[in-house]
């Protein structure tokens, strides 16, 4: 069995947003820290480092996953999508991002990257969600600014639905 010393760096190669990228990680380096500090992808944010707040959510091999609950070494060879992979190469926002922008679904923006990644997978699985389903999905994320209302509206809009329950007046 391969034994790795605590400080022994491993070469990790990932496919991130369609591109092969590699860097070095000590065995206990979190995937989130690897993405930020080794690969320079600072769009992924860390809010709690124990899997509660959802800010660090990325897509690993087709599943929305907390990158603070994975070690980089566990993900060697994985295919990862981060928030940097949503807009096109010219920086043009995708439909979900545009909906966030138009609905004021972000204020400080700290939680937004994680919410976008969860919502991306969610809309693939539930293309026409109800507001209740959207809120249920969002329960895995903490947003301190928006009160969630405009996030729900944005995801609803991105799913091509006009409006759910009436809100505001």
């Amino acid at each position: 069995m391969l034994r790795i010393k605590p400080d022994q760096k491993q070469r990790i190669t990932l496919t991130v947003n369609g591109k092969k990228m590699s860097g070095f990680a000590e065995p206990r380096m979190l995937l989130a820290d690897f993405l930020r500090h080794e690969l320079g992808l600072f769009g992924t944010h860390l809010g709690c480092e124990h899997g509660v707040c959802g800010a660090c959510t990325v897509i690993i091999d087709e599943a929305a996953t907390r990158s603070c609950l994975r070690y980089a070494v566990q993900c060697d060879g994985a295919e990862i999508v981060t928030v940097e992979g949503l807009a096109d190469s010219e920086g043009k926002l995708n439909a979900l991002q545009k909906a966030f922008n138009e609905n004021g679904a972000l204020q400080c923006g700290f939680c937004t990257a994680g919410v976008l990644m969860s919502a991306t997978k969610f809309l693939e699985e539930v293309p026409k969600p109800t507001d209740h389903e959207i809120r249920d999905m969002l329960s895995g994320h903490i947003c301190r600014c928006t009160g969630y209302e405009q996030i729900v509206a944005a995801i609803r809009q991105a799913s091509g639905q006009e409006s759910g329950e009436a809100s505001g007046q």
Partner: protein
Amino acid sequence: TPMETYGIVAQFERQPDRYTIWSNFQGPFILHALMQGALGVAGNRLRLITSPHSGGSFGIKQAMFPYMVLMAATARILGCPVKWIEDRLEHLVGSSSAADRADSVEAAFSNDGELLGLRFDNLVNVGAFVRAPEPASVYRMHAASNGCYRVQNIFVENRLVVTNMTPIGLNRGYGGPQFYYALERVMDAGAKELGIDPAEIRRRNFIRPEEFPYSAPAGAVYDSGDYGAGLDKALELADYEALKAERDRARAEGKLFGIGMAAGVEPSGSNMAYVTLAQTPEERAKAGGRSGGLGTATVSIDPSGSVTVRTVSTPAGQGHQTVAAQVVADALGLRPDQIDVVTEVDTLTSAWSLASGNYANRFSSVVIGAITETAEKVATKIKRIAAETLEVAPEDIELVGGEARIVGVPDKALPIRRVAAQTHWHPAGLPEDMAPGLTETTVMNPPMLGAPDEADRVASAVTFGYVFDLAAVEIDRATGKVEVKRYVSVHDVGNILNEIVVEGQIYGGFAHGVAGALLEEFVYDAGGNPQTGTFADYLCITAPEVPHLTVGHVNTPSPHNALGAKGMGDGSSMLAPTAIANAAADALGTFDIELPLTLNKTWALANGLPYERAGAARAKVGEGPQEAGAVEGGLTGEGSVELSASPAEVWKLLLDPATLAAVVPGCEALEQTAPDSFSATVTIGVAGIKGTYSAEIDLRDKREPESVRLVGKASGALGFGQGEGRVRLEALGEGKTKLTYSYRANVGGKVAAVGQRMLGTVTKILIGQFFKGLDRRLKSSADGPSGGSGGGFFARLFGGGRK
């Protein structure tokens, strides 16, 4: 608690000595003076640079200044730049908390519901330290102590206590939620007492629309409002009559259904001087005058004709860039996307002042005024230049669609870009007396923000928005869940500058308020140890828990603001806790409610049971450290032992320093410092953590030779504690004595981390050793040493037990 924690990079350079600190500090920059003083450098040698964006704050990022100083000092000592990113545990334990208040309020009403007088007795738990600007949280609402009402007779007493809890500081609403909890709950109590509908009693007492601007008895000048219209709107949106019928039906079915409401003004754009209300008028006079809340802004057009705005407003997601771009674009006839807004602050290069920063709903009440004024200055200059070129009067020029053109003659126009560029490229061609370049800065002080007077009256803020919230709740007896069935919130924010931004602030403030009412609190165990250090323990509100909100607006434009806007970020964060508490009280038929209404607490209330948090007691405000023995929980024990001497002999020996020094386990030194006081040095190991502790013990309630109470505290590098013990001596005859003891102690520090169970075991062993030693000594010395009054006994309890 914002999502993004504190982050600081500090650097120190020599020749000249200068600190530079990059951080997500939110201001107010009055704290620059404090940091500069702490570091002992001139103001221009402390350079603060804040990030253009910040991952949320809600006031919390005001309280990072001590860390900024520490990192700066560390950078100097280490001779290299230092970076510190706070983690979530540090943040939840040590950053900042909203004030913990136990306020009493009395209200006098006439029989027809007129509010005649209010008496507030506010007790503020400021936590571990009184940090600047505390105790300002209890003065934020002071000038508006009448709330929305015409009441003229108000008495306020404020008292502070310091505890070991997270220090308090700015947090959304800053003192507002606490103030309205007292005021708006007593309005409901008055309504109930007098048999008047809670909506009606408020309406009868509202300041009337024709009374604005309204001088409140404690000094606030309310700019504008129509509180009755807001109430009407809320009742209409809630369908109040139908809601009351729904309540009747639900109650007929045996359900716990209640309706509650709360009304409040929203002070915005603070007068920095309200903080000095904590001082007496004499102290204020001695310190020199204080007043104001300067707003600053810079608008510049560079040689290429592009516009940049500097706001010095440290936004954390409130849309300052969006709104500033909009306002400047309107003034200059450009598109918002053509305007670049710089929000980072650099104290060496920005036009800043004490009040700069992002707090007290400052942006739309004050900063936007400075931006508007500055943009107007630039617009005026452009118009003058264009007027000269086009040979008309400046008043005949309008700025529209990127052009300076003659009103009514659209084809006589100059591109604004070219006019602006001329100020750089061809200053000699400018109108006479005109300064070259196009950089304008405004430093403005809202004129109403004067100094507090001798009676502590102060115009504390620039604009006073209005919020009326109405909640209907149903409480599940089986689970204690408070379900918000209906929630309506009506706001008067003056003219709305940006609809999406305003809505976002309203929903966000509402979520904060609901969270404060139902979920979020810092919990401590009986020993004062924080229990909510992670997001798994501190329950931030999530999407499914935020009730459906119906928002309504009334608009009375503010005369105190160039655009008629008011500050509005606090919103329902101030009133939702009270509206929900009033609704819950209505549902439960009890007035006595403490927030948050957690499931177990509400369940107990709904079932008529006493509420006690499992395994812990809430740290009680106001208990002095000397009464440490009264602390609940912690390490406790009791026992008895038979000793081979009479009570009188045991008493003598027990209180004799020499004897104690010999029998207290691990005792290295013990001396009597006063007739009833001892100090000791003891070395003890617990679970491999061996340390030396110094203990101080006092004897109380001595009744020779029957009983004594021992109160003491101990501390060492590895831990600290305090406790109390009781000893009773009882003659058994034949020269024997039964000694009964009990003790209770609280332990903190590293040694506490080994756990109470381990500490309990070790304590028992130590006590056993002590009595074995004592008994041996009693047997061997028939003529034992004479003892003064002394107290080493408890050295084993406190010196030994708590280690």
